[in-house]
């Protein structure tokens, strides 16, 4: 979940509530669903919140939400926008990144702290909606450093979003003093190296030009020429990406944040080959919300004017209407709300404004009949019998690695033996210890024995758990089964000890047991048998091979068995 650093003094200033203590602020934030996580070295609050309300990624967005909560402002707010003076011409762009949007914000008076806040917002938007810049990337520039070419005779300035050959042009990127080609940036500039994978399969790289030349290489890095400083008063914000809606919404959030800092938003024309659009798109969307849906979801009765009031306190505007004879509301949703996908999201807003903890819980008057599955009751019954036979019930991980499953058991995956099967394998495991799902459970029990040689013997351990292997005959291409494994570790453990317990299991579940001699690399030859229950070969039983015992640092003999749980059904 995103974390934003916010200075409490600035939050007080932006909300106009100088009287609020830090603790009061924290409580107010918590009821918005924003949690105080700690403090930075500079005394900023680290605030964590859910990834739906991306309009709160900036301090001004958080302040706006608080002002709605305090009732200082009501209803939908949309910043005034001046007519466009600049155009972004789109031509010959890389096909993987065809979309661009932009806006100009004028008249800003930026202090160091404001700059940091803008950079933070930019980073947080990249991390969330921008999907680490893959879906949308933001560039902010000092407008006065740009020289626009007249787009149309005598009308306005223009810049160009286009493609450039990897070594087709040069510019000085941020944090550098050297002229570099885009390809050189990817190889030699730290930020370039970081984002190189994003454009790895591009033939031509995204590039933005003004009349002077190349000044931005999205989604990787801006040029130094247009770098924003505390002296910058007018900014150009451009965004490129793989989805127009996404970059437009990111732009909206940035425009609202700069508007809150006193900037004047000015539109930009984006001239695609097949048509021109004007951005930012701050159009208010209207959704129809049925009164009944609100009452049915929240479980309370509400008057019409209450709903209107709750909506306005959420930064929405609700206008009562009727649809098919039923009361509804036409709800205006401000453009920065990227989380409203459906009228249910508006019900949530109204519930939050009402206060969910004001609702009185009730146990639903709905009658159903509860039940365990047969498999689950059966598993519990077998587990209880194992415990009755003196086994300590164990619970091991289903994830393990091939060394544990095979090598340390003296087994090879291609052997004809229980456990010697292709394990379902994870693509990019975090840890070398957990790379596959286990094909059998005895290796887990031997590891527990290995880790407990300092504990009192006898150690009789059993586990019922998952085992799986690759099997193309199933729907998921994995055969999953419940397996029963048991070990008897003691100074005089013998085949007979294991066999006796297995007989008891079979008898108590009405299964006929045969144990014809077999071989298995993990067991001693001549003391190994196949477990056949009701005529089906389902497992193995025997005395564990000394080489396996020594591998697990065991100094006592171990008798063991493993078989499919469903064979006892």
């Amino acid at each position, binding site marked *: 979940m995103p974390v934003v650093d916010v200075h409490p003094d600035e939050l007080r200033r932006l909300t106009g509530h100088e009287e609020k203590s830090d603790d009061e602020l924290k409580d107010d934030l918590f009821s918005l669903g924003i949690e105080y996580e700690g403090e930075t070295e500079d005394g900023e609050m680290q605030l964590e919140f*859910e990834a739906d309300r991306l309009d709160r990624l900036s301090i001004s967005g958080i302040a706006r939400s608080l002002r709605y909560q305090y009732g200082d402002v009501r209803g939908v707010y949309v910043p005034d926008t001046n007519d466009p003076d600049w155009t972004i011409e789109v031509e010959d762009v890389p096909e993987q990144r065809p979309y661009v949007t932009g806006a100009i914000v004028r008249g800003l008076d930026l202090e160091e702290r404001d700059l940091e806040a803008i950079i933070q917002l930019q980073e947080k938007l990249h991390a969330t909606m921008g999907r680490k810049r893959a879906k949308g990337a933001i560039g902010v520039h000092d407008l006065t450093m740009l020289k626009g070419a007249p787009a149309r005779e005598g009308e306005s300035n223009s810049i160009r979003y286009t493609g450039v050959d990897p070594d087709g042009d040069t510019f000085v990127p941020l944090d550098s003093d050297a002229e570099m080609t885009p390809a050189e940036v990817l190889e030699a500039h730290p930020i370039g190296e970081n984002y190189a994978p994003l454009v790895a399969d591009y033939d031509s790289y995204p590039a933005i030009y003004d009349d002077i030349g190349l000044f931005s290489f999205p989604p990787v890095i801006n040029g130094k020429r247009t770098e924003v400083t505390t002296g910058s008063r007018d900014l150009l914000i451009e965004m490129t990406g793989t989805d127009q809606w996404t970059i437009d919404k990111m732009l909206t959030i940035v425009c609202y944040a700069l508007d809150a800092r006193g900037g004047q938003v000015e539109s930009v024309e984006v001239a695609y080959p097949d048509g021109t659009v004007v951005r930012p798109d701050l159009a208010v969307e209207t959704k129809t919300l049925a009164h009944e849906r609100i009452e049915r979801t929240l479980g309370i009765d509400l008057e019409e004017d209450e709903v209107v009031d709750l909506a306005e306190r959420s930064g929405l505007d609700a206008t009562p209407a009727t649809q098919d004879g039923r009361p509804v509301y036409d709800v205006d949703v401000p453009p920065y709300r990227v989380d409203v996908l459906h009228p249910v999201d508006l019900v949530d807003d109204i519930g939050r404004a009402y206060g969910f903890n004001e609702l009185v*819980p009730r146990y*639903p008057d*709905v009658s159903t009949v509860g039940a365990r599955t047969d498999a689950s009751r059966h598993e519990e019954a077998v587990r209880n019998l194992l415990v009755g036979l003196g086994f300590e019930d164990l619970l091991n*991980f289903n994830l393990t690695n091939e060394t544990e499953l095979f090598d340390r058991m003296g087994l090879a995956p291609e052997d004809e033996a229980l456990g010697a099967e292709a394990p*379902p*394998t994870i693509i*990019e495991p975090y840890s070398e210890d957990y790379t596959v799902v286990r094909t059998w459970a005895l290796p887990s029990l031997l590891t527990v024995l290995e880790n407990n040689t300092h504990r009192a013997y006898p150690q009789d351990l059993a586990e019922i758990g998952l085992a799986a292997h690759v099997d193309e005959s199933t729907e998921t*291409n*994995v055969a999953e089964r419940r397996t029963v494994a048991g070990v008897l570790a003691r100074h005089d453990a013998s085949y007979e000890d294991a066999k006796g317990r297995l007989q008891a299991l079979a008898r108590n579940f009405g299964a006929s047991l045969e144990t014809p001699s077999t071989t298995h690399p993990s067991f001693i030859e001549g003391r190994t048998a196949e477990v056949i229950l009701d005529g089906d070969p389902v497992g193995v039983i025997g005395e564990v091979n000394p080489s396996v015992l020594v591998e697990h640092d065991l100094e006592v003999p171990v008798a063991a068995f493993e078989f499919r749980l469903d064979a006892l059904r």
Partner: protein
Amino acid sequence: MKLPPQQVAVLEAASADDPTDIATLAEQLDEKPETVTGAAFALEEAGLLEVLETEIAEVSLTAEGREYADGGLPEVRLYRAAHSLGAADAPVPMGEVIQEADLAGPQVDIALSNFARKGYGDIENGQLSVAADVDPDQDDEAAALASLADGAGVEEESLLDSLERRDLIEREERTHRAVQLTEDGVTELMAGVEATEAVDRLTPEMLTRGEWREASFADYNVAADAAEPTPGKVHILRQAAERVKEVLVGMGFEEMEGPHIDADFWINDCLFMPQDHPARTHWDRFAMSAPEKIDELPADLVGRVESAHREGVGEDSDGYHSPWDVEFAKELALRGHTTSLSARYLSGEQIGELEPPRRFFSVEKAYRNDTLDATHLLEFFQIEGWVMAEDLTVRDLMGTFTEFYSHFGITDLRFKPTYNPYTEPSFELFGRHPETGELIEIGNSGIFRPEMLDPLGVEADVMAWGLALERLLMLMTGFEDIRDVHGTLVDLDFLRTVEVEY
């Protein structure tokens, strides 16, 4: 009269003239002192013997006390060392004195503090000087220690108190018992007392032959500890799982089952999780390299799910602005939540179409591709539950969870509005810790979104919640590190001795 053999022996050994103490009797009779004491009390009960009790304060040296009794008190050693270095005339650096006295470790502090307490001299600026008029040979504490080491007593209480404060002695109150025959005892002895035959163990033969009627059973020390068997025991986490299942079945929930390794379609797409959601990148998923994909997905359902992702469902519904590819939906992964089972059941693909009302649950493993720590493992048990019914409200959701958690001693539930891609409204559940009273997160819940339910063909409302079983167990028991409980690093002694949950 007939008495058990030990009682006969004690009666015969006791004297009517002088008290005989129990220890002497025990030695004489070759019996344990407890046995003799038992017999003596039984005889006193019968009026044949009198047990005379006196309270004795016993003083014994601790290991440290014995060390000082042999080698001298540290402060005395310090004084002597200082004296030998001429500290009576001029101050000597402390380090030299400590070395000369051969003091080390905690003894240095002990020596310095008692040196000062007893007025042996002054310590200033790291320099030590000794008072000339002190005679450490006359040290009361040293003398008392020596006396105690010789087995003699020390009368002065204040001296014993100060030695006890220094942990050099231990004082214990003990009851000394002695016995003396009563007149009745003498009379009975004169009349003749016979021993009944004492029996150690009751045998089958004694039962069949009737010998048990004549037998007198030797007394056992029933208060003593016995050799303890190791019970076979259901794993503590399984016990907790069983408890949860029992509560849920009692509340009308039916159990679900299904694959651990499943298609992303069931794990995420059916839950209206956009395909470019950060949680669906390979970093957070346990995606499989072998096998890679599920063979088949229900084509109609795939179409409806894709459409919900792209365009939403019904009026005024937007869907996501994210790519959607059925090939990604087919990719296999270890399920990140058991909500994949809920998706399968709700779709009607698992056990057929469901008619409301129904309640379902599972307590099964889910997987997370992350680092291990005290509260997070790569695999954990997720408690998943949902209710499908007409017209469920947020209040019904709150009431259901209030009921569930009350069975585990967790009350005073709070509902913090939160965000989940597949529920709206969504709540994090907070409850009071039964022990600490702290408000802690105990689950996540919500009402499934139309964009999830519509494609699955569900027209009723469905509310759902999830919670890690491990978290509930930690709350119930106060465990702090889940790695001690689950997995091959488990300590068998822990499993053998951990208290049972019920």
